[in-house]
């Protein structure tokens, strides 16, 4: 690992860190082209190209690690820098406009690595955190199942003890990118005779393990990044269990917290507000310019609305993070940020579509920023479904933040075996 400038107290200041990050980024990373990576899960790559992009992400992560710029908020004993969220924010600002290892952020760094840090044994952390920070391991959340996504604790995937091992059977679904990933963080049922929350256990497993069959699912826009994993007699050693047996919900609760934090998490690199490669106000401005409609007062109003929503989000997330750190807000307030992000992203997608006008319905390849905006609109709801739906976030805010009565549930206090289950299991 390279040396780095440190202050008198031995800690690298935010500004020293920023200067070092900036110099390194400019020397080593490629600036993004206009509109590169913009939109919602666009089908722009062949499988070969996708695999090459994954390899490049790993390569950048390794280089960041070697430069002492990876794992900014991870503890030094596992290869991190042990710095503060302010350092991570400075890094986010500096990397804006450059390529970055996007596929390694969510869910690898958060929630997966965050959960490992909190609940993993010393051996597990030493085995995986440095490998994650070097880009050697990409992780997936094996959480949703065909029968339940919102009701994650109703997992049917079963783990049965067999000597020093566990045997897993069942199916996980909607994992994005599992076909090129390495490890899964998996919630499984270990006891059917107790209420649902008390019979769960968390495991980790290599996605290439014997008995795991990864099938790709085509999304409505043709992208095949969604996956379903069928697990048949998959053998997992007890040393790959996270947390206590049947206490998986203790892990699960924090897992959900880290998932709701996602791009606001200090473990995650997420480029700043002025980027051309995401759903943001720059994109709206580019579409308005490209379609020649920027002088239309109606369009200007829409651009302004998008910019306002984006600025407000950029103010909201640090407020929530601060409140959760100082204890002024409960950890459940992460759901406020999740709700805001989802609603904001769907609104910006609609705005982009409306600004594009007719080019939203039919476009040519040289329509610039307006190309594909119609297809993005079709994928709009991914922002309010993936990472837990906004309805679930609203449940959490009202019940856990505001303390309102919980919804009646027919499964409470009942052995999971006896809980009614619906017929249609997704698909």
């Amino acid at each position, binding site marked *: 690992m390279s040396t780095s400038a440190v202050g008198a107290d031995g800690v690298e200041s935010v500004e020293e860190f920023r200067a070092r990050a900036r110099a390194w980024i400019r020397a080593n990373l490629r600036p993004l082209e206009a509109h590169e990576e913009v939109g919602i899960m666009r089908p722009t790559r062949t499988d070969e190209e996708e695999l090459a992009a994954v390899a490049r992400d790993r390569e950048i992560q390794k280089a960041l690690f070697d430069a002492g710029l990876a794992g900014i908020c991870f503890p030094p004993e596992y290869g991190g820098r042990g710095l503060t969220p302010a350092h991570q924010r400075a890094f986010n600002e500096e990397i804006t406009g450059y390529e970055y290892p996007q596929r390694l952020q969510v869910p690898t760094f958060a929630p997966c690595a965050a959960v490992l840090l909190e609940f993993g044994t010393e051996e597990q952390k030493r085995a995986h955190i440095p490998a994650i920070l070097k880009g050697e391991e990409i992780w997936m959340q094996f959480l949703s199942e065909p029968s339940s996504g919102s009701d994650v604790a109703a997992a049917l995937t079963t783990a049965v003890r067999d000597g020093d091992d566990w045997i897993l059977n069942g199916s996980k679904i909607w994992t994005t990118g599992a076909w090129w990933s390495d490890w899964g963080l998996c919630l499984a049922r270990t006891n059917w005779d107790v209420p649902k929350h008390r019979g769960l256990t968390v495991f980790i497993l290599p996605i290439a393990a014997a008995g795991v069959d990864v099938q790709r699912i085509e999304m409505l826009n043709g992208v095949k990044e969604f996956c379903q994993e069928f697990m048949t007699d998959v053998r997992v050693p007890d040393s790959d269990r996270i947390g206590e047996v049947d206490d998986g919900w203790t892990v699960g609760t924090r897992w959900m917290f880290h998932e709701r934090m996602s791009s606001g998490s200090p473990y995650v690199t997420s480029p700043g507000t002025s980027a051309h490669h995401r759903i943001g106000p720059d994109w709206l401005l580019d579409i308005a310019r490209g379609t020649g409609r920027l002088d239309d007062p109606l369009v*200007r109003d829409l651009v302004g609305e998008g910019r306002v929503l984006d600025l*407000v989000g950029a103010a909201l997330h640090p407020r929530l993070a601060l409140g959760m750190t100082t204890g002024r807000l409960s950890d459940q307030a992460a759901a406020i940020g999740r709700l805001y992000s989802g609603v904001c992203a769907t609104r910006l997608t609609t705005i982009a579509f409306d600004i594009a006008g007719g080019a939203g319905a039919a476009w040519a390849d040289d329509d610039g920023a307006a190309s594909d905006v119609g297809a993005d609109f079709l994928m709009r709801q991914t922002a309010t479904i993936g990472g837990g739906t906004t309805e679930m976030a609203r449940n959490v805010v009202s019940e856990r933040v*505001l303390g309102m009565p919980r919804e009646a549930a027919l499964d409470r206090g009942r052995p999971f075996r006896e809980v009614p289950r619906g017929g249609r299991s997704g698909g």
Partner: protein
Amino acid sequence: MLLELTPDQEVFREATARFLADRVPPEVIRRLRADPAGFSPDYWSAGAELGWTSLLAREEHGGGPIGDAALVDLSILAHEFGARAAPGPLASANVVAHALSTWGGEAHTAAVEAVLSGESLATCALGEPATPGEPAGIRVQVRADGGDVVLDGTARPVESAAGAGHILVTARVAGAAGLAQVLVPTAAPGVTVTPMRTVDLTRRFFAVGFDGVRLPADAVVGEFGEAGEQVERQLQVALALSCAESVGAMQTAFDLTVKWAFERYSFGRPLASYQELKHRFADMKTWLEASHAISDKATAAVDAGAPEAAELASAAKAYIGDYGTELAQDCVQIHGGIGVTFEHDLHFYLRRVTLNRALHGTPASHRARVTGIFENLKEQA
């Protein structure tokens, strides 16, 4: 409001909170609806002793902040004003104190001191933000004539003009592009003050006419014809205070409604147990936290004179204008019939956010301003 106040800020907030709870509890506010001024003179001078008018003024005028961010401290007061729907032209009076103290001359010293002590009231007619430095809606003209300046036209709405000793008027320079600010004594010949009707119970607005109002040139605040920048700066201060006040009103309306949802039963269960309503509360809570966040961020930027201040202040005004009224109206909806009565307190806060949404530019005009600023920012980049 900030999640973490310094001990000094907390003492400061607490003093005003106690004073307002004591002097203008809801039953008093309800009565003040019939009061032509909306509050008594001793209420305002007692408030001035608590620091309501002095934070943005320089020390030699008797002002000065309690910490190192005067506008941030003042926004804590504004939040308290909103949370209690308190009477008084807090934003106007502070804009005047700030303007006279920063850009005023010798001739204005007495006026500043009177405003700071609370012995006299001052108010302002700022116009509305259009592009930075170029406010819209200014219908007062000023011309230089010998050693004098002469004002003609109408400014509206001007808060508390009837009780004010002075009005800081923003005017267009006749036959030229620039702006000038003039401190006009309300007693000057040619000034007429006509009451207007308003949505607020205790805040009072007036149309102020200027018919050949002649004043010595030293009534001008700042450079004649070059006031664009100072007006922009004052608008930002007014926007920050109006946003902080609206967020305070949102907070109280929300808290009242959460309490109501737990207490009110229908079909044998509290309203708070219905998922449809719980989800609306979750949305409102999100708007509320977002409003706190953008208001505080904008205030800090305006206080620091940061380059992003104009855009953040307008973003805050646009967001809080929209979502503040949306939140208050949804609170009315969830109250049902009682929510549209005079007897209930909820309308105090609805009135405050409604007033602030329309003053100093609508959400749409601020969105337009944000777009312009953003576009320029991108062109420079």
